[in-house]
């Protein structure tokens, strides 16, 4: 029986030790430094590699989770004493206790202020400084308690809570979210598998900047449907995503989709194809192809013979690519100008290519992030918590007048930072003092 009790006590002691370690500040500081060190190492790697090998690795997420656990336990452990400290102040202190406070002054009162007048003056001075004041009568005399900035006690708790909410939001986002890339020209639709909805592009408008050398803005009107019924509709542009039901459609980029007519001059046979940058177009039957590299809306050549676009105005559109033979060897550059047929010789004979038209196409990133509200709320709480932490300084000032005495004892303590309290104490003393007694 006694052995069982001892074993249980030891087990309880061990658990307490583990909990104390898990909620300790030392562990928190160590984990922060560890995360900083890993992040430094990771930032020196290729970004994609760092994301895949480090930031999304089980051990990095494990360290983050461990840090979150530490933060949670640390906050929980401190919440009770913090609440007691903030909400249950000891409002009456003896003169001896006041004398032992971190900040103490004794002020000799004038005869007019003695015997109670000093207490009233001290209360008024504290109120003028924004303190909440309470006065108590005791056998020793009047006891004054002034307090301000009580919300500041909760700053660190709210900051930690905000961080935890942000981490929770990130977790919810990563567990319930998805990311999909899709797009097209006006009239196209694409299905978003993770979201079980379809996005239809009703129109695309390119709006040039006042200076056409600046990348233009592209606006696209989209309609989202699920099971045939409309779920959302709106215009998407850069910095102006469309949000609905936790999903968001972002404008990622735009590109040009070119319409090319391929004609066999010998047979007169014609086919029309749509191509974009980086697409491959088979020409002839023996395996030759064109790799389209870039679309230039206002084509020109540098003195060194390098193609470039003068600006974004579609004044001289050219689709540029390289013709490859069936062995995959580049043979010659191909520059297709609008409505200007170009005859290309390939192994199978001659092929005539014409750039007939081009349209603005939009590429979207479609995401679902159900953690967004948590992330935003967490960020707000974090900033508010930091404000309380550092901008609101909880202070308590005590004043005790000795019955029939002509000295008032002023003492105080602050939660953090001494400058504000010292100033307040000095002001109250100045209000009261005709003659300050050596502390």
């Amino acid at each position: 029986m006694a052995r069982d009790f001892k074993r249980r006590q030891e087990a309880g002691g061990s658990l307490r030790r583990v909990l104390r370690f898990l909620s300790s500040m030392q562990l928190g500081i160590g984990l922060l430094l560890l995360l900083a060190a890993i992040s430094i190492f990771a930032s020196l790697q290729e970004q994609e590699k760092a994301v895949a090998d480090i930031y999304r690795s089980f051990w990095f997420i494990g360290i983050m989770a461990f840090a979150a656990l530490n933060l949670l336990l640390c906050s929980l452990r401190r919440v009770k004493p913090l609440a007691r400290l903030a909400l249950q102040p000891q409002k009456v202190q003896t003169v001896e206790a006041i004398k032992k406070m971190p900040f103490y002054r004794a002020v000799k009162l004038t005869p007019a202020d003695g015997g109670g007048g000093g207490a009233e003056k001290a209360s008024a001075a504290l109120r003028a400084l924004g303190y909440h004041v309470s006065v108590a009568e005791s056998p020793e005399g009047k006891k004054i308690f002034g307090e301000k900035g009580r919300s500041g006690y909760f700053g660190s708790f709210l900051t930690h809570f905000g961080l935890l909410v942000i981490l929770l939001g990130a977790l919810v986002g990563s567990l319930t979210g998805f990311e999909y890339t899709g797009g097209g020209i006006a009239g196209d639709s694409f299905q978003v598998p993770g979201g079980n909805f379809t996005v239809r592009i009703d129109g695309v408008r390119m709006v040039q900047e006042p200076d056409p050398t600046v990348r233009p803005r592209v606006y696209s009107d989209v309609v989202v449907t699920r099971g045939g019924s409309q779920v959302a509709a709106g215009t998407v542009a850069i910095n102006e995503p469309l949000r609905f039901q936790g999903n968001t459609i972002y404008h990622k980029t735009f590109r040009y989709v070119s319409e090319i007519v391929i004609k066999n001059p010998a047979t007169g046979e014609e086919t029309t194809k749509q191509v974009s940058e980086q697409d491959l177009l088979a020409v002839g039957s023996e395996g030759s192809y064109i790799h389209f590299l870039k679309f230039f809306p206002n084509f020109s050549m540098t003195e060194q013979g390098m193609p470039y676009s003068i600006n974004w105005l579609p004044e001289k559109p050219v689709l540029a690519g390289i013709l490859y033979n069936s062995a995959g060897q580049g043979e010659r550059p191909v520059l297709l100008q609008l409505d200007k047929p170009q005859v290309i010789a390939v192994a199978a004979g001659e092929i005539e290519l014409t750039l007939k038209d081009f349209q603005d196409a939009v590429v979207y990133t479609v995401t679902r992030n159900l953690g967004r509200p948590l992330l935003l709320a967490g960020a707000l709480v974090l900033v508010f918590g930091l404000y309380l932490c550092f901008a609101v300084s909880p202070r308590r000032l005590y004043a005790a007048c000795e019955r029939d005495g002509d000295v008032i004892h002023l003492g105080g303590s602050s939660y953090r930072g001494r400058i504000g309290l010292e100033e307040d104490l000095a002001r109250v003393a100045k209000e009261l003092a005709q003659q300050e007694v050596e502390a």
Partner: protein
Amino acid sequence: MAGAIEVSPAGLFLENMLFALAVAGYLAATAGYLAYLFGKKSLGSYASRLLHLAFFLHSAFLAARTVNVRRVPFVGHFEFGNLFIWACVLVYLWTERRQKEKYYAVGAFLAPLVVLYIGYLTVVPKIFTKVTISRAHTLLPPVLQSNWLKVHVSASVLGYAGFTLAFAVALMWLLKARLQEKSAFARALPEFAVLEEYMYRASVFGFLFQTVMIITGAIWADTSWGRFWGWDPKEMWSLITWFVFAVYLHARFTRGWSGLRTVALVVAGWFAMLFTWVGVAWLLSGIHSFG
């Protein structure tokens, strides 16, 4: 150059002249503060006035730049750097005004840092050809045409300014500790407790704005790129800086750390901040290539 703005010769002249005058003012103020530090106590208030004048000229330069680029000068290394330097001086002058006792010695450490930053923007590109800091006047690309830019960059420069001031005080602490009390020079510096309080307050200021910077950047990234966090080197180094200062604040407040250990953390935090600004731009690649 894409989006280049044609600036009138008069506008360009005014901008360049104001910049040159501001630089000259900062140099003169630095000399004044250093003279104060080396015993010419009467020069303290003159150095402060010179810094005020240089700050005024620098503000006028930023105003001229705003007119010339037809937007707030928030973009690119040159504009960001100037704004950051301006914020450093603003924060320092604000503390100098608020302090009842004038710690002009802090100015003797901050002003050379300001000159160092200006040197990075103006002299370094002339020596190292790889460091190209363009002073061109350009329009904003659509992705940067957002109100979040103003909040994000404002918070960023104020955060960096706080950390720079904390670092300047950390340097004072180190020098005072190194010289020991027997040196008259060390005795001229504020007490260790005053320096630590000053360093703490500057760090808190920087930390608050660094937090706002990271949060607004994340919200803007969510609006522009569809995700709050992309593990981009700039984002990561901002977070590393934040981690270091978070450790400093926790260690000071809850563990009661003081002295060399906290000074070392502030110095480490400043280096992390500097790497976020300079190192990431030239040594690492990412989506923050515009600043």
